[in-house]
Structures are given as C-alpha cells and as structure tokens.
C-alpha cells in the first residue's frame, strides 16, 4: 500500500491504435509522486497520445492506467489533474482574468480572486491580467496556459511540450516554476523532444513506436548509450534495434 501511494502514474501494457497505426504498443511506465518525469521521443512516437490517455481524453484499447490510485477519469473529475495542452488552448476573445475565472469555476476553485492573483504572480502575468488574450504574444499565452493548468493546484500536472516555441529565457523561468512545484510535491509528466528540457527532468522515459525503449535518469541513459551527452544518447538509443528498460 505504501508502495502504491508512492506512485502517481502507473501504466501497464497500454495499447492504442488509430486506424492502422499503433500509437501505443504495450507501454509500461511508472511516475513517482513529486518527481518530474520526462517523456522523450521523436515526433509521432506516442508521447502526446500517452498524455491524452493519462488525461482521460483517449480510451486505451488494452492495458491499464492508474493515476494517484484511481482511474484517469476519476482523477480528472476530482480536479486532481492539471493539463497543459501543446497549443495554448485559451479563449482569445476573453481577457487573461476572464479565462482564469472560467477555468476556476469549472474546477470549483475556492476564493477565486486570490487564487487567480497568486497564479498570475507565479507565471509573472499579473500586469497583463486585463489584456485580451488575442493581443498577447505567444510567450505570454503559454504563461497563461500554464496558469490555467495550475490554478486549481493539481497533484499531477501533465505538460505536453510546454516550452515548444518559446525563447530560452522563458523556458528557464518555466523550469524554475516546475522545480518549485515539484518541491511542493506536485508530480509532473512532461513530454518533450528538447534535450535541454529533458536534462532537467528527474527521470526520463525514451519512447519510440509507442513503447518505452529506455528509462532512467539523464546520466544513466548517457552511460547506458556510452554517449557524451543526452542528445547523443537519445540518437544512439533511438536507433538501437531493441532495448530493455533500465532504472
């Protein structure tokens, strides 16, 4: 029981097929509570599909996914999940405040005004709270998207390529926030193909063709591949014919 409590995400033999394509092909994975787990893989490897399964948006064909001891839909319904989609996915015709107020109502956030202010301060968007989203730059929209995912203080944060298309300064700021959240016990499942980002995760799962090819910390994966850095390790492991999980 104690062991189960320590696991935030448990995926066992997860399969998902779209038409003739096997998006997930027997994926096994465990994310510990409070850790930042990076899903690393090339485009089309199944990262987003897996995150969508975890978010309860896609029904798996086979296998099981357990989040915080319950099913994905139960976790979502209880407001325990925060999901930051790849695109900002905000209401462009509403203001920053109005967007957050809407998501706060859906998540039954108590003391909405205070929580919105705190969240906006966290993502450094307080001075733009009255701006209409359509007038914001891409970077500011990404901040707001993160704010919408954080607002209800989820236990598990699903981040689908959260820093794609944003500049290195903002990326660094984001990772500072993520690290703070992790220190407060929030579990994060982050998909990425940016090596700089991957190296900041506590553990990584290298995904290819809908399976976890290798798993471990960044130094473990580098050592296993006999490479100098994570990018070389990624390329080496990705091109290997078969590999078992480590770590």
């Amino acid at each position, binding site marked *: 029981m104690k062991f189960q409590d320590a696991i935030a995400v448990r995926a066992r033999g997860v399969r998902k097929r779209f038409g003739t394509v096997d998006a997930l092909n027997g994926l096994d994975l465990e994310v510990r509570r409070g850790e930042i787990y990076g899903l690393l893989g090339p485009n089309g490897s199944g990262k987003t599909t897996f995150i969508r399964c975890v978010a*309860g948006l896609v029904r798996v064909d086979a296998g099981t996914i357990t989040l915080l001891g319950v099913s*994905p839909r139960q976790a*979502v319904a209880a*407001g325990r999940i925060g*999901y930051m989609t790849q695109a900002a*996915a905000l209401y462009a015709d509403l203001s920053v405040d109005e967007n957050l107020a809407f*998501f706060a109502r859906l998540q039954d956030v108590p003391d909405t005004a205070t929580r919105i202010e705190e969240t906006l301060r966290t993502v450094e968007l307080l001075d733009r709270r009255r701006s209409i989203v359509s007038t914001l730059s891409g970077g500011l929209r990404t901040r707001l998207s993160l704010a919408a995912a954080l607002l209800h203080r989820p236990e598990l944060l699903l981040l689908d390529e959260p820093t794609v298309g944003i500049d290195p300064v903002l990326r660094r700021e984001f990772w500072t926030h993520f690290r703070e959240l992790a220190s407060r016990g929030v579990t994060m499942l982050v998909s990425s193909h940016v090596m700089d980002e991957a190296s900041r995760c506590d553990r990584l799962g290298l995904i290819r063709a809908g399976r976890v090819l290798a798993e471990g910390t960044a130094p473990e994966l580098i050592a296993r591949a006999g490479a100098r850095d994570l990018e070389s390790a990624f390329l080496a492991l990705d091109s290997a014919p078969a590999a078992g999980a480590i770590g």
Partner: protein
Amino acid sequence: MNPRRIVAVARRIALGFRRDHRSLALLLVAPLVVLTLVGLVWGTTAETIPNVVFATDRSNLPAPIATRLSDAMTRVTAVHGHVATFDEGMAALRDGSADAVVWFQGSALHVTIEGSDPLRSGSIGGAVQKALVEAVSALGAGGGDSCSATGAGGFQCVGVALGMSVTAPNIQIERLYGSDDYTLLDYLAPVLIAFFAFFFIFLLSAVSFLRERTSGTLERLMATPLRRGELVVGYLAGFSIFALLQAVVIIAFTVFVLKVHYTGNLATIFIVEAVMVIGAVSLGLLVSAAARNELQAVQFVPIVLLPQVFLSGLLIPVQQLPDYLRPISAVLPLTYANEALKAVMIKGAAISDTLVLRDLGVLVLFGAIVAAGAIASIRREVA
C-alpha cells in the same frame, strides 16, 4: 502580371480541392441534390383537389334541385364534394379537414375558404366554379325531370332556379382566417420569422462550437471535471440568451416596423420561436462535430437548410407536396415551427390549442434528441 505566378496560385487552389473531397463533392453534388429537390417539389407537385362541403341548409334552392345539385357536386372531379350542414362544414374548415364551405344564396354562390394560405386559397375559388359547371352539366345530361319542381327542364332549369349564369356565376368568397387586406407578407411572415431565426442561430452555434474543437479548448475542458452534458447544456443556455434576444428583435421588427398583421398572442409567438431556436442551437452543435474547419461548417448550411426551405411549408404548403416527400417534411423542425406560427399569427390560435401544443412538443423533442446527439458527438472516450 507574371503568368507563372498566377498559374502557381491557381494550381495551389486546384491541389487543395483535390484533397478536400468534401468541398469538391459539395461543389459538384450539392447543386444536383438541390435541383432534384426543386424538381420533385415544383415539377411533380400534385394539384391537390380541395375538399368542399356543400351546405344544403344554407342554400335557398328548391329542395329537389338542391338535393340533385349537391348530389352532383359530390361526383365532380374538380373538388371532393361532401354534403353537410353549414355548421358541420365550418367545423371541418377549422379542423383542416375541409378547404371550403359552399352554398347558394340569392343569385350568388357563397364560398367560405380557410384562407390561411394564399397559394391554396387562390386555387379553391376556381376549383369550386369548375365543379359547379361540371355538376350542372351532369344534371343537364341527366334529363329534364330534375327540374320538375320548377317546371323548367335539364341544364337550363338549374340556371333558372339559381337565377344566375352557371358558366359565370357570381361567386362571393369569404375567409375564415385572414382578410382581403392581408398582403402576401402577412401570410409569409410566420414562416420567414422561423426561417431567419433558425438560419442565423444555427450558423452561429455551429461555427462557435467548432472553434472550441479546433482551438484545443474543448480538449482542455474535457480534462476538467466539466461533463459533456454540462458543456452542451451550458452552450445551449449561453446561445439561447442571444437566440431569444434575436427572436424578440425579429418579432418586434415584423410586427411593429413591417406592420405585419397577426391575430394571436405575441407571447405565444415568442414561445414557439424560442423553442425552435433552442433546437437550432443543438443542431449547430451536432453539425460542428462533423466539420473539421469553419469552411466545412459553412458547407453544412445548404445541406441542413435547403431541404427545410423546400419541404417545411415555407415555399409550398406541406399538404401540396408529393406523398413521397412528406415523410421528410415530417422530420424537419421548421415544418412544425411554420405550422405553429401560422396557426398563432394567422388563425389566432392560443398556446393551449392542440395543434400548437403538438408542434411545441415535437420541437422540444427535436431539441432534446439533437442535444443528446451533440453530447455524444463530443468524443471524450472515457479511459
């Protein structure tokens, strides 16, 4: 101008169409479908034979002639003739089972028509006159004994008895609903109100919900505790506020600016329209599920609306449609909205009227079924 660049642009458009099968199909097939529909509706519309009640108790003809004439009227081809009392005839006119009540008085042929539909009204007077000529001719051919009571014989005796020319009788047409000072707009206003309200709110809700899908916010919403039903009902509520506002504006403009005649209660007109537009919002949400972008959503407009233009009684009364098109007409929401609004605005029907209640019930049922479809169309596959 550089022809190569122009050709490049044109080629780009052609390539796009080649991969957008739906647009291509709509471009080529939709006009054929619409033309087929037009052909079916206008090319084969049956010349509906009116049901005419011959009111013997009101006619001032000598009894034997009245009997023979009314008997002959039931055998003519121009109308479906029935013999009944005047009161029975008027009751049949109100419940829609008769189109006209006819009787002779003085030297005139009196015809009371239902009158709520100008297209139908226009043909009834002519049909009755034709029937009269047919009946009198039949009597003439039948021999002289029919007029023995008057001492006259055969064909002429009827004219004598009627005191008029049977070939060009003095026909007095009265209307149960509407009046001579009604313009075409007065008769068309109920169906136009319904159509425009339906059209605009359907389009708006379809495109808006599609934007929710394409922008990714729907996916984000589905990763919150919000349920699909809550989302659809919330959408219905949000759009309905504006749909109802639109209904108020359309009705007020029609009644107070266009000065359209109406006999029913304004509130009843509003309720019918309100129920209809809520169904239109649901349909918009459902249709948005089948479209991948706003262009495709707009393509659904003719598919959803054109059958309703031709088959809901907007252009041609449903009763005059060929039999095989009526089942389609029966599943279109505008058919019921048109019927109810005509009943209220032209006939002065109240909300408690059976016909209005039935139409409202069908519209509510339509809205509920389509809303359920919209909920199901949000493909949140529960893990």
